[in-house]
């Protein structure tokens, strides 16, 4: 398992306590899971994503990540309508492990309230949360 100092946590993204990230891309917001999440889950072998056009609230389950050991739910960091899903993951789920912030983005959504994005943790706050969880 990676030490916190070995984790990649890019500046400029927003983070949730469930280890999703969200990034503003013009009118859309792109969502994925963090390096910490993929490291904890182990090798991802299957990714289940929602249908384009679905509207989901902040905190609702939008899909699952399946590793050899476990199935984990992934939650909407903010509410909105699903504009696109990353279809590459259907055949290459292992990208979640190798490129969690770039190639393995999960969904793009149209936010129902852009202010929800600003309420999420920034890089510094997310790292602090990880440190605190580790200390406990």
């Amino acid at each position, binding site marked *: 398992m990676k030490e916190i100092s070995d984790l990649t946590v890019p500046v400029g993204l927003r983070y949730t306590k469930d280890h999703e990230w969200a990034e503003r891309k013009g009118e859309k917001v792109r969502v994925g899971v963090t390096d910490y999440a993929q*490291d904890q889950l182990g090798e991802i072998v299957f990714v289940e994503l929602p249908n384009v056009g679905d509207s989901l609230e902040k905190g609702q*389950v939008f899909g699952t990540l399946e590793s*050899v*050991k476990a*199935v984990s739910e992934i939650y909407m960091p903010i509410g909105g309508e699903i504009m696109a899903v990353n279809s590459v993951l259907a055949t290459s789920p292992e990208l979640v492990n190798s490129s969690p912030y770039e190639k393995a983005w999960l969904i793009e959504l149209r936010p129902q309230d852009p202010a929800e994005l600003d309420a999420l943790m920034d890089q510094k706050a997310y790292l602090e949360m990880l440190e605190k969880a580790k200390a406990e």
Partner: protein
Amino acid sequence: MEAGSRRTPLREWHFGHGANMGNFGGYEMPLWYPTGAKEEHLAVVQRAGVFDTSHMAAIHVSGPDARWLLQHCYTKDLEACVGKSRAPLAPGKSVYGAFLNEKGEVLDDSIVAEIAPDLYLVVVNAGMGGAIGCHLSGHAGSRDVAVRDLTDQFGKIDLQGPLAGKIVARILAEPAKVLDSLPYFSFKGHFDPASPFAAAARLWDGTPVLLSRTGYTGEFGFEVFIQAERLVQVWKTLLSVGEPLGLIPCGLAARDSLRAGAVLPLSHQDIGAWPFVNHPWPFALPYAGDGASFTKDFIGRTALEQAAGAGYTYPFAGYDLRKVSAEEGAGVLDEQGREIGKILSCVTDMAIGRYEGRIYSIASPNKPEGFEPRGLCCGFIKVREKLIPGQNVEIRDSRRKIRVEVVADIRPDRTARRALKDML
């Protein structure tokens, strides 16, 4: 000691090699290494893998009444258990069975190895050395038998996979001698240098080992019992001589998916505090030729004979790799949607897939051209009514429902029973 705080001598090595660690049976153990559990699983099916299994416990049972005590407590009939001819257990042979309580419930499963007519090595699961040792002592009465818990007094490495023979030959002092006539469920040597049996199997540097043709992956291979202080050096040497053949270290996640695909139970999960009957492991019980009555008396026998209604345990295989969690509230539904039981284990065997409905392994000699398995969900269910192989049921947890097939076997073309001479 708190849960998860017990360590094997290899803990630092695991950490140093980036293992994702987790608690198993009170020990801090590697779940997978950076290569990932999928690659580890495939390595054992196609090449070879090594597992640190030093968390497992063992008990020495010795004395003139040692055999009597095991006949009384163990589910195998030691007088009729070896091979198709049901020969008595003899020195150098081992068998798989279980220890039950009076209610016929499983305390633990175990391999019993006869080292000599008055000396047996009883190998049990992590953390179970004390409990099974006490159970055996408690039933010894005034008999002339000594029970000694060897927990943490030895290390163990499981070398598993079709290339395991070629690899183990490279670390043995006299490979031709040691590997001659070593069939499935037999062993040679002893890990205690003071044992008179230690000379029968030594490594390149003279380290004595107990080398056993067993394992828990369904694939060809060995369990190597060794003094704890020699464990790290032997582990490193195995990896360096095995690396050119594709040997990699494997964690408990791959061990779990390999054993489930091989239809082997995980103690306290697939077998446990319910009567040990109506399951895919009748060979672990002393059934007579009629498959119904028992050939000997043993603790739990009466309860098993009266255990109608205890439910039925079946292996299953899914149609893709998606699985469900065997969590609280998860269950098994029949074709009418009625809840008929629970999920015991549910994992993904990454080495198998279906082609026109039939299951093939990546190692199947007759696999269809271009066949690349994506993995299948598999495991065990325990249901109230009898099912037959080929029948479909649904397994569900809080997030999904999956159709799976009750099967007689899961991963085909396993190598565990292959003749050693064909594997060198």
